[in-house]
């Protein structure tokens, strides 16, 4: 951004003092959220998925892993031949689709959130160091970041999962490691502009130690963009993780997982559409929730980008 100098007028200092209250309280946050349709819908969808994930053992009507072949491919309750015991029908092994969807929320949220935490833990320090030290540190770190940004995530994920085998935590590690670069990028550019601020220069001049400048003065300024990107990227990672499961490269197939359910339902598409439709709806709504909430959060935290 190129700052332009504006002419100084004699009256500049005489402007009436407007009380600009720092609007950052929790009450203000919720007032804003409750008055925005998109943000509110997003928050509700996330909350719904979170409640399913946390309380799955109490909410789910059936054991998600147990089923008998006798109840195989029962249609949803409102269709002919539907069993009121299984609201959304059963899968090819006779397991309750609804219960599996509720349990599946655990995997999706766990992978989405913890992979982003891992990305933040790697990416933020890289961005802080590159932005603060500049010169060769910046060059070196940003070249590595570029490589990560250029490398096709899904291919790296396919390669790694194919080589190391399936598993929830492996998915988290793969997605976490492939996703840190965007955080490094944003934190770096934020630090570059913050570094020139008077308060940071003042801290440097009075001889504050480097770590203190970085953590006390630079890091707080990067929190809002990090939060926004993290929310958006949770959505992306949930989609990627389910895509891997769909290819049979994600979580263990015995665990109830939305992507895995979609993969196993595909061959029954012509006869039992419910096995494939409902988990997809759950997945789509959760991702939509994070996208809606992320959009709102960006407007809330960084109104200048609106």
């Amino acid at each position, binding site marked *: 951004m190129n700052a332009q100098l504006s002419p100084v007028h004699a009256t500049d200092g005489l402007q009436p003092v407007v009380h600009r209250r720092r609007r950052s309280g929790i009450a203000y946050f919720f007032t804003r959220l409750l008055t925005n349709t998109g943000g509110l819908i997003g928050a509700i969808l996330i909350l719904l998925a979170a409640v399913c994930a946390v309380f799955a053992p109490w909410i789910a009507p059936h054991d998600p892993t147990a089923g008998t072949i006798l109840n195989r491919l029962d249609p949803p309750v409102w269709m002919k031949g539907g069993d009121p015991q299984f609201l959304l029908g059963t899968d090819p092994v006779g397991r309750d689709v609804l219960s599996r969807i509720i349990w599946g929320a655990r995997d999706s949220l766990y992978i989405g959130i913890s992979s982003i935490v891992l990305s933040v833990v790697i990416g933020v320090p890289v961005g802080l160091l590159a932005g603060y030290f500049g010169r060769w540190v910046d060059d070196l770190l940003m070249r590595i970041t570029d490589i990560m940004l250029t490398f096709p995530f899904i291919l790296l994920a396919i*390669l790694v999962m194919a080589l190391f085998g399936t598993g929830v935590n492996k998915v988290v590690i793969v997605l976490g490691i492939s996703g840190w670069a965007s955080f490094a990028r944003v934190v770096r550019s934020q630090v570059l502009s913050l570094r020139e601020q008077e308060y940071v220069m003042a801290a440097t001049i009075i001889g504050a130690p480097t770590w203190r400048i970085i953590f006390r003065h630079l890091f707080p300024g990067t929190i809002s963009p990090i939060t926004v990107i993290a929310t958006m990227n949770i959505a992306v990672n949930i989609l990627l993780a389910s895509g891997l499961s769909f*290819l049979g490269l994600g979580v263990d197939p015995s665990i109830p997982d939305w992507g895995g359910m*979609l993969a196993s339902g595909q061959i029954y598409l012509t006869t039992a559409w419910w096995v494939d439709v409902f988990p997809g709806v759950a997945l789509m709504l959760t*991702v939509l929730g994070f996208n809606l909430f992320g959009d709102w959060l960006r407007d809330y935290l960084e109104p200048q980008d609106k």
Partner: protein
Amino acid sequence: MARYIIKRLLHTVIVLIGISLIVFITIRLTGNPVAAMLQNGTPSKQAIAQLTAALGLNKPLIVQYWIFLRGAVTLNFGTSYATGQPVMQMIMQRMGATAELAVGGIIVGLVLAFPVGIASAIWRGTVVDLFGRTFALLGISFPNYWLGTMFILIFSVWLHLLPVAGDNGFVSLVLPSVTLGLILAGILARLVRSSMLDVLSAQYLTTARAKGLHWWRVTISHALRNALLPTITMIGLQFGGLLGGIVILEQVFAWPGIGQLVIKAIDQRDYPVVQGVVLFLAFLLILVNLVTDLSYAFVDPRVRIGGEK
């Protein structure tokens, strides 16, 4: 300009070496692939040693990397363990189908994204905008493979309009292209909208309107031109995501492209093929990024000047 190109090319070479290192190290981290390949039955130690030597896996790592790199530079990714065919030949046989799908997806994406994005920007805050933004949001929220499955369910299973899967000429291309295009359109429509909004309030547009130009003319020839550049760049940036989408969609639609090749190779633990496809796609991606960057610099002088510190 020349300096910018040289710098950008040098940068590309560094990225290429970086990526080849990542792929090489990742594969070697799992140990000797031979033991995994011979999983069926219990192979004798001798059989493992023989195959290891035959595949050159007993040489020092640095030598292996050198051989690997030398091959990769000439697009020689070795031969398949499973078929004995050169990997590059296998890739080329299937590249056509994948390219068709990619082009189809990009066309559908552009055709949808521009009208939606432009309409959203012009009628900002109205029902049209709400509709456009919802479309874009759904585009980025749908799992592509699930959307593809739903299309198969609706158009093939229920309505019998289009073939379920496989490659039977143009009709087979419709569903996968539309699926791919819808997701891309979601991302692009948001961008078209925001870049149009950026310029719609600019002073030169007010001037154009004041001159008495028709509003349609102002929008198309003045504002749209500005929205075009970031959109093209975005397609370049989204190319990686597009490739990922293609790999998955090829499974859904049984489309005989490189996505199917790589998934089958993973099943058979045919590492040269997996490694070759991943590297090949990465090269392709870097090439697309390079071309996007250079063309951008060519059109917009600020980029090449800003590029030189």
